């Protein structure tokens, strides 16, 4: 369900790290809670984010949800194709529907995030 190679935040973002780059999106649990996604707003490339900073907004027909960066870093890439086709967030949240790539300020900062197993248990406790 939740890819082993990612780390997860309590705000339901995932991050997949490769060297000093982290690719960020929202989890399958988050997209299910939202329902049909119809709008996505992403930051400009170059923006500096602190951990927990809002980097965008995702909206379903019924709900608005802020997107929070699980790590500190600089936005080096955004998925502009996704903004034009936000329904991919429902279809492939952990793959095609990545949202931004950040250059990590401190790769060790991942330690505060959950692994797949811990995140799975976390969403189960939230669902109850």
């Amino acid at each position, binding site marked *: 369900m939740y890819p082993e190679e990612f780390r997860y935040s309590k705000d339901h973002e995932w991050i997949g790290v490769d060297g000093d780059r982290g690719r960020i999106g929202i989890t399958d649990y988050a997209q299910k809670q939202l*329902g*049909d996604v*119809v709008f996505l*707003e992403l930051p400009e490339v170059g923006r500096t984010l602190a951990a927990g900073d809002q980097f965008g907004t995702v*909206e379903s*027909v*019924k709900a608005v949800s802020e997107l929070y960066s699980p790590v500190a870093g600089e936005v080096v890439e955004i998925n502009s194709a996704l903004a034009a086709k936000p329904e991919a967030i429902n279809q492939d949240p952990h793959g095609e529907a990545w949202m931004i790539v950040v250059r990590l300020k401190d790769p060790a900062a991942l330690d505060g995030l959950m692994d797949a197993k811990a995140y799975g248990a976390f969403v189960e406790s939230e669902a109850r």
Partner: protein
Amino acid sequence: MVPFGGWEMPVEYSGLIAEHMAVREKAGLFDVSHMGEFEVEGRGALGFLERVTANHVGKLVPGQAQYSALPDERGCPIDDVIVYRRAEERFLVVVNAANIDKDLAWLQSQGPNGCTLRDRSDEFALIALQGPKAEEILRPLTPIDLASVAFYRFAEGEVAGAPLIVARTGYTGEDGFELFVAPEHAEALWTALLEAGGPQGLVPAGLGARDTLRLEARMLLYGNDMDETTTLIEAGLGWIVSLDEHKGEFNGRAVLAEQKASGAPRKLAGFEVVGRGIARHGYKVVLGDEAVGEVTSGSYAPFLRKNIGLCYLPAPRAAAGTEFDVEIRGHRVAARVVPTPFYKRPR
């Protein structure tokens, strides 16, 4: 499931957009049992209803229904309602779930003389079968001649063995029926309808799709698009305000007649968002540099694939083509008044 007027109701079943599209193209089934039902019966029933509603009840023949409202003395709705004439002296008034207690207290305060007024909400479940395939799905389940039940007409009979009222009414902008049935028959009826309609594409639909469907059809939501601070004329409901001499005096008539003749100072307008973003209920509406109000209803419209909404604008600035801004998370996003309904079903 979400709490709604004291009921636990599903926002969606298979997905809001899929449900919305099913109703536009095939059919959807809604459990709207939360709606309230009052019975008004007796020699004085017609006279009482003429005094407390805006529309002309006397025009109804038995078996006919009418969209109406309960105006206060300022011409603002206590609620919007549908009045069903079941017999010369017997009416069913369907009210919004959240307003049942308020409406009942209001109607009692208006002196229901020569008639009885009873809250029968607990005796009716309400199932809405909506969409272009609705008649085809219902036909094999009932001896009622559905073709003779025209828009805003109803018949009493049986569907799938359950005694009920079948009304050709709804809140989606599509053809369809609302079935008033005793709660003990509701579950079996729901199941029978879903089974019968499955091959034609019938799906259960939730509160979420109900809201986007009604908004595309510019049907108003009480508490959002109108309330006790908006007159019926401002809300664009002049068509349910009857000044017919046979109706006579009713609550708010003076104000409503005056506004009908000379216009209201503001009007509920339909708009499309021109810029990027979804305008939602409560977002600020800015005309020039002046905040003129809030979005009363706003959403992504799944069939139209646009972001649409309703808001009150000063009457001189409410014509189609007028441009204004909606404040979305601190940014001003352009919007434009458009003709409504946003969606009209093909006939």
